[in-house]
């Protein structure tokens, strides 16, 4: 299992770079992860990121795009605007949780 230095500290990541230890995440880490993939976090990003983390904690798996929209109320179009092209994977990456496994 590799480790990466993010926001000045070492965190555990998988082969692709997704964090593997939920508790190593904090907002500074999130900002750095977002910057790694060309996203500057704004006030609109945080509710989504917090929902993804909270949902993962409760459900034990990362939410799909539809679940984020249905449960958090953030429209799908906005998710695409905030995390362009591949929102489901990107929001999971920034939130420090695995890629979503669900189909819809």
């Amino acid at each position, binding site marked *: 299992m590799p*480790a990466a230095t993010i926001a000045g500290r070492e965190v555990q990541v998988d082969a692709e770079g997704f964090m593997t230890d939920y508790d190593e995440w904090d907002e500074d880490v999130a900002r750095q992860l977002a910057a790694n993939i060309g996203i500057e976090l704004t006030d609109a990003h945080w509710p989504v990121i917090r929902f993804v983390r909270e949902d993962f904690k409760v459900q034990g798996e990362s939410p799909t795009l539809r679940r984020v929209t249905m449960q958090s109320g953030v429209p799908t179009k906005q998710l695409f605007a905030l995390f362009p092209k591949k929102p489901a994977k990107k929001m999971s990456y920034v939130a420090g949780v695995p890629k979503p496994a669900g189909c819809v």
Partner: protein
Amino acid sequence: MTTTVQDASAVVPDFGDEVVRKMCFVCSKGNLDMAYPALIMANGALTEGVDVDIFFTFWGLDMINKETVDKLQFTILGNTAMHMPGSSKHIPQGLAGLPGMTGFATHMLKKQIHDLDVPDIREFLTLLHDMGARLWACRMSADMAGLEKADLIDEVEDIINVSEFIELSGDSQVIFV
């Protein structure tokens, strides 16, 4: 063993944003069970940043016809692979034609889909449209059914002929359902 990677860029996921991939789904069936596969794949494709067109032809037009979109049915008749959900217990074709069986099967399928938190067809089409999919209706099918654009759900871009479809799907991977 832990390897320390000092350069964080070495383990940044490659989301492949610069890759341009296009897929085109052809929906030719009007059964509830045959409406879902293309929509689920299209949803997955859009989530992966793939550019998606969906072309509705023949009975597939029922999926975007305002009159029929909420009335798609699932029938056991003709499906010789049919068995009870969650078991291998076969359902004889002789039972499939009994009155009420199609309604029952449709109800059961809708419940299973709902339990998985997958939207019904009408909502699914709106979702895909919001995600950037373009929906197209087949000109010949529309003419056969006597339908005009106003008869189709608002998310439909246009009714196009086969030449236009061939043109727009030119650099797409085409999946026929």
